[in-house]
């Protein structure tokens, strides 16, 4: 079953001091992931960015899995990042304007492999001065994985929820003109309806503070 999983962490809402405490980060990172940070490639990455980068990967993988394992409970230390490569370009990107969109593969991303039991996923992450965002997929080819990020004015929960749905539907409308709706199924993951029929597009939504983000899987060539 195809699924989707993404996450965004607003760096403004991160408590750097608390993140650096062992009793905090040890509830997110496994012992191997803690050791991985000491590799030379991470020398220029602040520890809090590392912790929340891995958090965003784990949360994204959890969302991906939740579609196929409805009873799954998020337990960060059981979702293990095995491998991380840092971007060829800048480690921290400027987030210019209010919106960013991408699909497919790029060397600008942090990327790697994440494991949950017998499940293997791959991730792409991007770090700006204001946020860390991740999307996961079940193979290394991200060409049909679409994701977008937008800044919003109001960080209230209901505004975030409305804004992320609008952002997603505006993008999906470019493929599916007409009246689209986002509903949550009983397990809690979002489904896309057109004329009340499920389009069976795996989508994932995330928001934190003043940022909202979506991801979905869609091959536009199969969509006519």
């Amino acid at each position: 079953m195809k699924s989707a999983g993404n996450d965004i962490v607003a760096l403004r809402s991160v408590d750097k001091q608390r993140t650096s405490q062992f009793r905090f980060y040890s509830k997110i990172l496994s012992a191997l992931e803690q050791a991985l940070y000491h590799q030379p490639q991470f020398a220029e990455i602040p520890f809090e960015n590392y912790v929340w980068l891995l958090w965003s990967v784990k949360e994204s993988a959890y969302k991906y899995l939740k579609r196929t394992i409805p009873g799954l409970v998020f337990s960060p230390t059981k979702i293990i990042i095995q491998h991380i490569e840092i971007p060829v370009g800048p480690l921290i990107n400027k987030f210019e304007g209010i919106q960013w969109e991408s699909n497919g593969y790029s060397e600008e991303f942090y990327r790697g492999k994440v494991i949950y039991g017998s499940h293997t996923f791959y991730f792409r992450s991007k770090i700006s001065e204001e946020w860390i965002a991740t999307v996961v997929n079940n193979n290394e080819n991200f060409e049909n994985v679409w994701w977008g990020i937008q800044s919003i004015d109001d960080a209230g929960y209901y505004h975030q929820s409305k804004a992320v749905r609008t952002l997603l539907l505006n993008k999906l409308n470019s493929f599916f003109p007409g009246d689209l709706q986002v509903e949550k199924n009983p397990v809690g993951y979002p489904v896309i309806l057109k004329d009340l029929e499920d389009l069976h597009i795996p989508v994932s939504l995330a928001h934190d503070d003043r940022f909202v983000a979506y991801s979905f899987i869609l091959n536009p060539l199969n969509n006519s």
Partner: protein
Amino acid sequence: MDRKTIFTELKKVLAPYTENKEMLDGISEETDLIRDLKINSANLVDIIIDAESQYNIEIDFDSAEKMYKVGSCIDVIIDKMNQSA
């Protein structure tokens, strides 16, 4: 310490992470922290750390993953307090 006292204290632990403070007045043991209180999942670790400090207990991974409802949070806190007594 009885269950009712922990329930009352837990509201104070949850308050900084709950956007709508009025919702806390109407919570029950069945209230889901993320779905009902709209607590950001990233704050669940904060809540576990705050509960550890409040009750001088240590909450292991297996117990932490049960703490997604108010009632299960109370179960874990009581269990860990009994273990450290």
